[in-house]
């Protein structure tokens, strides 16, 4: 036996005896033990983990069910468990309605891209919550609460741009207000207003008009609502009038004026009066136009509304001009120009100037015409206003008209050469200066 083999034999024996442990223990068990020792959590942490584990609630049947089912199902089941069966059916109907609508529109429609309601948890939750509130209120016969819940829903969906839903809830509000007579009549009026606005948003002005008229009727006894109703009506009539061009338009404006007369807002009333005057003017009924324009004129004078005053003056001037009463026209215009002489540069001022110039033109007072038209032209040039072309042309016409007699004179005297000369320079003085 060589010493080496001896050594080999002795070694394990030696180690075994020294520690009393096997190699397996040394190589496998010991490292894992020391690892555990090293990485052991502090005692308090272990305790905390244990208590946290203990505190975990054990899952009930309903929790596991909840985990398994979709949100729509969860919400529906929660509602039904509380007995809110109307809400449940309503919710189902709404979801089904949306799907149907979507299919009807087809895949090309832009709305198709938007997620369905059951893909939007927040909206769905809100819907369910308020439907439940409404139903609870209905059960307890608190109809105004019911109304307000629906109103809340409607405004929520209006904000989130789900028009179809908000419209339907506004209609629901209306039907609630109509069914339960004991409800505050103001709410019914308000419901009509909301439905009217919904129709207007949808562009169905005729139906909107109908609703607004009902609103107006119902708000008869309430000062604030009545005024508001009148304003809404005025607005809608004006909108309707803008869409028509025939005689109907005038009728609408007239109705708008009548409605605005009922409101407590004097400003709107008088503005409508001005619009009515304009409409009459368009339809060639100058006398009626004058009546309403005068009203506006007086009002503007009262409240010192310069812009309105200018508009009124201009319109009046045009009227009188049509009636061939030029003195009056100039009178109004000059009055206005005097009044606002401190505010040169204003567009309305420019318009008045141009109107005045136009009148002077017709009166063949070309110098004054040129004077006011140049003012008008320079103002609109400075403001780069849309009227600039008109003013430029008028200015030119005034110049031309001023020179016409001299021009004719030259032609009469057969001074063609001088005319040609003038054409090269186009100086005014060339023509106007007295010739030898």
């Amino acid at each position: 036996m060589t010493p080496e083999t001896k050594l080999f034999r002795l070694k394990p024996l030696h180690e075994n005896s020294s520690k009393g442990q096997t190699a397996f223990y040394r190589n496998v068990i010991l490292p894992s033990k020391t690892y555990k020792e090293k990485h052991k959590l502090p005692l308090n942490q272990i305790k905390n983990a244990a208590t946290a584990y203990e505190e975990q609630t054990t899952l009930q049947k309903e929790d596991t069910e909840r985990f398994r089912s979709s949100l729509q199902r969860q919400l529906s089941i929660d509602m039904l468990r509380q007995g809110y069966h109307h809400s449940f059916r309503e919710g189902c109907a709404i979801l089904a309605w949306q799907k149907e609508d979507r299919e009807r529109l087809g895949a090309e429609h832009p709305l198709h891209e938007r997620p369905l309601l059951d893909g939007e948890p927040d909206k769905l939750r809100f819907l369910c919550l308020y439907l439940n509130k409404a139903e609870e209120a209905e059960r307890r016969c608190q109809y105004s609460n019911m109304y307000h819940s629906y109103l809340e829903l409607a405004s929520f969906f209006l904000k989130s741009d789900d028009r179809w839903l908000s419209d339907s809830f506004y209609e629901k509000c209306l039907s609630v207000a109509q069914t339960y007579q004991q409800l505050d009549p103001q709410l019914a009026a308000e419901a009509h207003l909301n439905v009217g606005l919904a129709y207007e948003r949808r562009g169905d002005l005729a139906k909107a008009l109908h609703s607004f008229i009902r609103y107006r009727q119902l708000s008869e006894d309430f000062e604030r609502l009545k005024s508001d109703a009148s304003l809404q009506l005025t607005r809608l009539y004006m909108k309707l009038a803008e869409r028509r061009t025939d005689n109907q338009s005038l009728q609408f404006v007239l109705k708008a004026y009548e409605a605005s007369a009922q409101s407590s807002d004097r400003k709107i009333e008088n503005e409508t009066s001005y619009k009515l005057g304009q409409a009459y003017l368009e339809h060639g009924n100058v006398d009626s136009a004058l009546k309403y324009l005068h009203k506006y004129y007086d009002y503007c004078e009262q409240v010192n509304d310069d812009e309105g005053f200018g508009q009124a003056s201009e319109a009046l001037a045009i009227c009188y001009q049509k009636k061939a009463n030029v003195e009056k026209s100039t009178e109004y215009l000059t009055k206005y120009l005097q009044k606002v002489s401190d505010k040169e540069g204003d567009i309305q001022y420019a318009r008045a100037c141009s109107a005045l110039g136009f009148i002077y033109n017709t009166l063949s007072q070309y110098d004054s015409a040129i004077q006011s038209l140049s003012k008008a032209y320079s103002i609109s040039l400075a403001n780069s206003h849309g009227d600039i072309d008109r003013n430029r042309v008028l200015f030119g016409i005034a110049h031309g008209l001023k020179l016409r007699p001299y021009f004719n004179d030259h032609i009469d005297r057969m001074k063609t050469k001088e005319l040609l000369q003038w054409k090269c320079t186009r100086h005014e003085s060339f023509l106007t200066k007295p010739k030898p």
Partner: protein
Amino acid sequence: MATTELVYPLAFPKSVVHKCEICGKAASRMCSKCRVTYYCSEEHQAADNIGIHDKICSTLASLRLKQPFLPSEEERRERDREIRDRKIHLVGVTRMIGERHVFQDRFEAAVPAALASLKLAIEVHGPRSVELIPSYLILAEASLGLKQLNQCWEYLSQAQYTVLQQHEQAPLAITSQLARNMAQLSIARKEYDDAARHLANDIYDASLCYGTEHHKVAGGYFLLGKVFKLMNRNEVTESLYTQVTQMWYNFLRRLLQSRVVFSDMDAILGKKDEDDEDELTSSSKLDLSTEAEAFNTLQTLLNYRLETQQTNPMTQELNKIHHCLTILYFLARDYIQVHDSMNKIKDCTIQDIEDDQQRILKFLEQLGQMKALMKRQQQQN
């Protein structure tokens, strides 16, 4: 009455063991008509006869008898298919009878019917199919009626386990029915919260399956109303019961209309044969269990309304219920009751009801005329 023939278990060949149809013990007697059903005792035979055996005796005989050997593979396959179809049909029939027993509160009779259907269904579909669940449910309902709550729990657990075992979603109609039965059990155990949870599941599934306004959903609402009544939340019950009434009212009115329209059409066409009349009634007839359910529900609703009449008189609701009952009697051809319940409707403001009444009266009048005509013809013959 049942015809019995005693048999001796020891007299059979060694491998053949006949078991009791009801309890599965070794049998000592046999139905002498079909000669394929065995019982352990007289009571079990009597129970089976009352429950189901009378109606399916002959069919069972043809199904269970040893089939003659057919030489051709094709013929054998053909025969197997035919037997399978007949078994499936028989499952339907036995279930229908069982359900009807349950609705009419004859629970002892329902158990044999359900057991028969279960046995047949296992033969056809195997022991783990969803198709077995309706039978389990009838059994559960019957044992609930017999106040054997644990037995009921067992059946329902079996059914639920079967549902959970399925890889895909089980049919909604079945899950809804299962949930409804679980709810009934919970009510019997006075666990109202659980009952409400089960009913919510039931209504949800049924609504998805049939649509929210279907009369099959009404059962769930009806039970939910009952639960809330037991929990003393009467305002909820009130609204739920109103809804249930409305659902049945709509459903029955539609039925009535379809039927009366048919008969009007026939009157125009000049068909006045009694045969046609029979056909018509069967075409628009309620199936048995629905009829029984409707009758039960409406009676309960009626009682509820009469109870609460002192504090909260709802004349129109009462009228609606009476009208539903009228239609129900009319469809069941119980014409004397029709007049009775029609007379119970007072100060009615609903136009529809009056229209319907006119229709019914007109129909009855026509029927009377026809019968008189028939009689005269017979006398002439």
